[in-house]
């Protein structure tokens, strides 16, 4: 098995990413973006493209830099740490994977090339509960009709990958963001740092179709990859809220003592540390298995990472509010931003018990 540690190059990538995000995804900036309709800033998107983040996920033959999922896992950890607001998961993991797995050479060249250069943002009507089933959209006379909810960044994507049709007709259709008959409505999400949309198609003409693999197989793979990267994001988030809690517990004094000198808080934070390290191990492993393309092991590693890391992150973020006491319950403090992002990651694409059931299937008990 690939070692669970990072190369010097990967460490450097992390440092660069952290430096960028410290500056461009600082809390006040996150709050600005939370309040926008789009949920991200085009400038940032261009800049990370210039740094090659998206390109690292794309093979060289399609204009990418041909790195792999371990590099992306490093970036996602940093995203979680910084509550990065951008259509990154939707574009780089969901969208690019769908195109990579089922697109023609031409489609790959166009769409993946666009992703790599930062010119194109994608969204996929993947099942929000992670359970791949019938398509939410019908196909009649070559046009698309229907509604898909919980489409990550669906309101801002340049191209939507829409699961539509029934039976032999079922496929992943490409729909331009400005197509006729397409309505895109942001949803009232609890976690404002990750936008989701309801998209409605009313006789919309698709601009293409991904025919290289059965739609459901593709969505299954897409959801699994998203689970792994969400786990990495969650591990980074856990680490950050642990640091926030520790920092506050070292400085906040009550009864003449730093509250972190009380065992109640000290031991609580120690438990968060234990959980965070456990979450990291699961997430790092899954990213490496994804990188290696070992499907059998991925069926174990992805559920493990998703179930464990998102649960740990939720508990860590919840405990961070408790450590902060009253101030942690206020809007102005950042604790709730992490809490809500963590809760969202726990629920997105299926709750932990759903992923545990997948794990049990894969392990065989």
């Amino acid at each position, binding site marked *: 098995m690939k070692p669970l540690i990072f190369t010097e190059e990967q460490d450097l990538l992390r440092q660069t990413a952290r430096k960028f995000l410290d500056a461009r995804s600082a809390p006040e900036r996150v709050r600005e973006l939370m309040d926008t309709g789009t949920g991200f800033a085009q400038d940032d998107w261009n800049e990370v493209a210039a740094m090659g983040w998206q390109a690292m996920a794309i093979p060289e033959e399609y204009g990418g830099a041909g790195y792999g999922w371990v590099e992306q896992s490093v970036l996602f950890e940093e995203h979680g740490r910084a509550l990065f607001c951008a259509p990154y998961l939707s574009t780089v993991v969901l969208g690019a994977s769908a195109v990579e797995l089922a697109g023609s050479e031409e489609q790959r060249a166009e769409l993946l090339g666009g992703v790599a250069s930062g010119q194109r943002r994608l969204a996929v009507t993947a099942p*929000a*509960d992670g359970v791949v089933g019938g398509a939410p959209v019908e196909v009649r006379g070559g046009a698309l009709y229907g509604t898909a*909810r*919980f489409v990550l960044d669906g309101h801002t994507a340049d191209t939507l990958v829409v699961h539509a049709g029934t039976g032999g007709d079922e496929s992943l259709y490409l729909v331009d963001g400005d197509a006729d008959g397409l309505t895109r409505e942001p*949803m*009232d*999400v*609890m*976690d*404002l740092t990750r936008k*989701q949309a309801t998209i409605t198609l009313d006789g919309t003409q698709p601009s293409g179709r991904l025919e290289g693999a059965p739609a459901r197989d593709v969505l299954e793979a897409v959801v699994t990859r998203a689970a792994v990267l969400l786990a990495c994001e969650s591990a980074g988030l856990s680490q950050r809220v642990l640091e926030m809690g520790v920092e506050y517990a070292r400085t906040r*004094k*009550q*009864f*003449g*003592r730093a509250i972190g000198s*009380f065992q*109640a*808080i000290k031991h609580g934070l120690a438990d968060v540390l234990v959980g965070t390290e456990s979450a990291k191990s699961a997430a790092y492993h899954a990213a490496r298995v994804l990188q290696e393309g070992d499907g059998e092991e991925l069926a174990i590693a992805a559920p493990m990472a998703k179930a464990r890391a998102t649960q740990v992150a*939720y508990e860590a973020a*919840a405990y961070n*509010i*408790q450590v902060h*006491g*009253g*101030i*942690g*319950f*206020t*809007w*102005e403090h950042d*604790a*709730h931003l992490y*809490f*809500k992002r963590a*809760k*969202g990651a*726990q*629920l*997105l694409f*299926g*709750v*932990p*018990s759903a992923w545990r*059931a997948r794990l049990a299937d894969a392990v065989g008990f």
Partner: protein
Amino acid sequence: MSDQTTDGRALIDQRIQQLLDEAPPATTDDQEFWGRQFDLGLAWIQFPEGKGGLGLSPRHQKYIDKELTDAGANFRNKQLNLIGIGMGGGTLVAHGTDGQQDRWLRPMWTMEEFWCQLFSEPGAGSDLAGLSTSAVQDGDEWIVNGQKVWTTIAHISRWGMLVTRTDPDVPKHAGLTYFVVDMESDGVDVRPLYQITGEAEFNEVYFDDVHIPDENRIGEVGQGWSVSMATLMNERVAIGGGTPPRGSGAISHAVTAFKEHAAGDDVARDELARLWIEAEALRLTALRASENAKQGTPGPEGSTAKLNWADLNKEISSFTMELLGSEGMLLPGGYDFSRPELTANRTPSPHRLFLRARANSIEGGTSEIMRNILGERVLGLPGEPRVDKNVPWKQVPR
């Protein structure tokens, strides 16, 4: 004792009749009715005559309220001016002067004047006695500077119950003094404090050279801690009350969510059953506590309820989001940065309840403090070494 009760009851019945005759609820303005009720001594039955009561056992209040409610009266005042009526009134009767009682009790009861409580500070949460807001005497006035926080209804209150530090050179509990502050004074700045729900149930209150006349001091200088304790004791009484029916509260949202979103999922069902059981056992514990209290044999069960409730409410409301699955990622209606309506019976969505519940283990005593209390006061375990005892407040690290 039994005779007294009977005696009291006759007088009460007579006063109730008089009140209903003089101010029939159906045709009387609420405030006028409450005013008449106060004058007849039926507001706080245990308060002295002339101060809204008849000097009788507080046990009669339930009876009075029921009779008057049956006759069409309502007690929105008790819900909406809870801090004043539930906590302030008792404090004034126990520690206020005659003049103070006469000035404040009646309009408090009639809700002509709202009251708020100015205790917690950003730097003094669990460690309330460590508070910093200063009051410095200047002739027959006090000049107050500092900041209070977590103050409900401060923005509509006329009066605030304020604890200040008047002597930083003595140990922390000894240097406090308690005032009633006119919230309309110059230098009082009330700002909404938005919570993670996007609502502002609470306020921050800033004091910048606020003048309080010495006649608004409650209790002696340096006695602020014991007056504050009196206020907080009344809090418990005010917050207590009937036991809700089985299956109500947070667990009802969970059951609904399960039926609508997770029916047939045995794993979720088991977790729901576990939480249902804990919620019901807690409800039974509250019942048992009140039965034991009535019998005069209170046990430890009552003391466990707050901690148990806080942790359980958080757990249930979070599990409900899991039951809702993807729908749990939403906040229907979004964040509206409103002040919640001044009504006692809001029915928030499970999503909002989930967010709101995070404060349960912080407000009214953090769960850490509750465990300390259970460990030390109920179980008799020894305290920790203290670094803030017998030390002048100003020397305590903060």
